């Protein structure tokens, strides 16, 4: 298939599949609600009034467009390609997550739902959901793995300040996947009045497509900004991949630009060979979880295995189905960096550019540090700086043996 001629917007197909991946693998109780959601979304997404409301909120409430920043000192130090950072960390609430929650919350309002639920790992999606619920006067319940509640305390407090109820989930591995299970159980029980805002490009169709559409503003802006600032398309894109929403948001508008290499960076945790990681695209295989078929971390019996990452936002055994498809097509390459490399990325960006990145985004940074020196000085890389690192300072301090 010729990437430059393929109609990337035609995917997923009408049944919600990206090739073998995606789909709607959910319990019967949720099938009709999922069809209603799909119908509501497809009738609204081309509605000029809906788009205008979304764009207005992105501009005046989120603060978009986010800057594309040329990291000059970092570029010089690494001695290779020019590094541009897409500053999603400067959005209201501090990460890319708000782009999607605004879109879904407007949809929820149109569908007459009065209650919002969300799952969260690092807490950024929970905060973004609580934020938009506060603004629209909707009840908000956020499910969060008990383990993540501990390691992301500042975000838990922020959600509570915003009026959300945070429910710690004690089942399974007590992280993001278990929060997602619990949110699904809430949804199946309260489906009449409740809208489930999924925070990533995973879950049953239409979530992967809908979240991608809302997040694609990242790539559309970046594409225009790099043409203005650098006069040509970038040579490479780099973004971290947990579920993969910031990554698909950056990648999607560039998929037909064949000259642009695309790299998704997964969490290698303690190292792929140790088995303690969260890199399904790098080291997993295809399976069905959380409503879609995709690459998963699973054992020989099809049980989902516990993941490990320093970053709560990447600590997930699955990945958005579109990434699985892009990997098989060879349109995007997926690599993995360890906790230790991510820490190095974190400190480097902090010290060289005065920008404290989220631990998730630090994984992308670590890969940029590998990639940039291999490219020529007239080449360029856009990295999605998906979130700011304030939420992680307790984790960093603890890892480095510092008492705050």
């Amino acid at each position, binding site marked *: 298939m010729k990437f430059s001629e393929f109609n990337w917007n035609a995917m997923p197909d009408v049944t919600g599949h990206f090739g073998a991946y995606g789909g709607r693998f959910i319990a019967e*109780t949720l099938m*009709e609600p999922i069809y209603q959601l799909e119908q509501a979304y497809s009738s609204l997404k081309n509605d000029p009034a809906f788009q205008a409301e979304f764009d207005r909120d992105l501009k005046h409430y989120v603060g978009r467009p986010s800057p594309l920043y040329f990291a000059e000192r970092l570029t010089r130090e690494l001695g290779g390609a020019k590094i541009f950072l897409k500053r999603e960390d400067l959005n209201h609430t501090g990460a890319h997550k708000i782009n999607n929650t605004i879109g879904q919350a407007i949809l929820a309002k149109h569908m007459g739902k009065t209650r919002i639920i969300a799952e969260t790992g690092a807490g950024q999606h929970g905060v973004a959901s609580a934020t938009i619920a506060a603004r629209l006067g909707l009840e908000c319940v956020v499910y969060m793995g008990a383990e993540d509640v501990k390691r992301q305390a500042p975000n838990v407090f922020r959600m509570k300040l915003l009026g959300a109820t945070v429910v710690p989930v004690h*089942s399974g591995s007590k992280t993001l996947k278990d929060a997602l299970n619990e949110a699904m159980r809430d949804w199946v*029980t309260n489906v009449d009045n409740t809208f489930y805002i999924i925070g990533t490009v995973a879950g049953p169709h239409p979530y992967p497509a809908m979240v991608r559409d809302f997040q694609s503003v990242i790539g559309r802006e970046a594409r225009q900004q790099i043409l203005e600032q650098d006069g040509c398309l970038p040579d490479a894109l780099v973004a971290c991949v947990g579920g993969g929403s910031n990554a698909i948001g950056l990648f999607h508008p560039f998929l037909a630009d064949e000259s642009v290499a695309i790299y998704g960076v997964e969490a290698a945790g303690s190292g792929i060979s140790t088995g303690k990681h969260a890199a399904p695209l790098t080291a997993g295989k295809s399976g069905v979880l959380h409503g879609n078929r995709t690459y998963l971390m699973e054992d*020989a019996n099809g049980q*989902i295995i516990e993941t490990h990452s320093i970053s709560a936002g990447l600590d997930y055994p699955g990945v958005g189905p579109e990434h699985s498809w892009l990997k098989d097509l060879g349109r995007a390459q997926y690599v993995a960096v360890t906790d230790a490399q991510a820490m190095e990325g974190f400190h480097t960006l902090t010290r060289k550019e005065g920008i404290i990145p989220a631990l998730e985004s630090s994984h992308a940074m670590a890969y940029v540090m590998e990639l940039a020196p291999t490219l020529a000085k007239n080449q360029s890389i856009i990295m999605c700086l998906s979130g700011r690192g304030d939420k992680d300072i307790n984790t960093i301090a603890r890892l480095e043996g510092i008492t705050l």
Partner: protein
Amino acid sequence: MSRIAACFQALKAQGKTALIPYVTAGDPHPSITVPLMHQMVEAGASIIELGVPFSDPMADGPTIQLAHERSLVHNTSLANILAMVSEFRQTNQTTPVVLMGYLNPIEIMGYEAFAKAAQEAGVDGVLTVDLPPEEGKSVLPLFKAHGLDPIFLVAPTTPAHRMQAIAEAASGFVYYVSLKGVTGANTLDTTEVAARLQQMREYTQLPLGVGFGIKDAATAKAIGQVADAVVVGSALIKQVETTPNDHTAIIKNISGLLASMRSALDA
């Protein structure tokens, strides 16, 4: 005729309602499952639903989640469970066995391999919670080709046109989920259930079972008056929670509860 069809035909001839217990295979230990299955048949079970544990049982409430976790401590696999069914079949050739669970363990085993092995083991039906008919277009014919009835859920949210599609894809029986929510939830509206079953009968001749929210002899009896089969799960599994280390007590208490339901249904 399949074992499931024969079972319903025989019950109908006697004017009886089917009683279908659900237990998670391997809970709290793999060694209990086969004796428990036999004892449940003694207590009046018509069909046995054997839960295949999964690490992420999204449609289940806390009781069955914990049952899955207890079973997975012993790494109970789909292959182990098929071996349990084979063992059960050595002395019981008549009671139908339906496997209930999530898609991924089957997907990983491979659909063809699973269908073949399940047929050889003596499995009669497969209920895969997260495989709606839409996603089953290539899988379901494989099941049927190996004599496995695909059992589907119908929910309170299922509209008429989906009932029809489900009826077309299903065989064996159709399982009506009596409430919105996860397994083990509480309230049950018999009038509402009766109305929905009535609607469902417009689309299918298959027997109709009802589950979710049946917890004792009284609720079983009430549902038994409108359904062809009564499914009970969480209420049985709660008996495991009370005495997790005493297999004799678990078997005794589960069969005791089932027997009380059987008498209430037959009264």
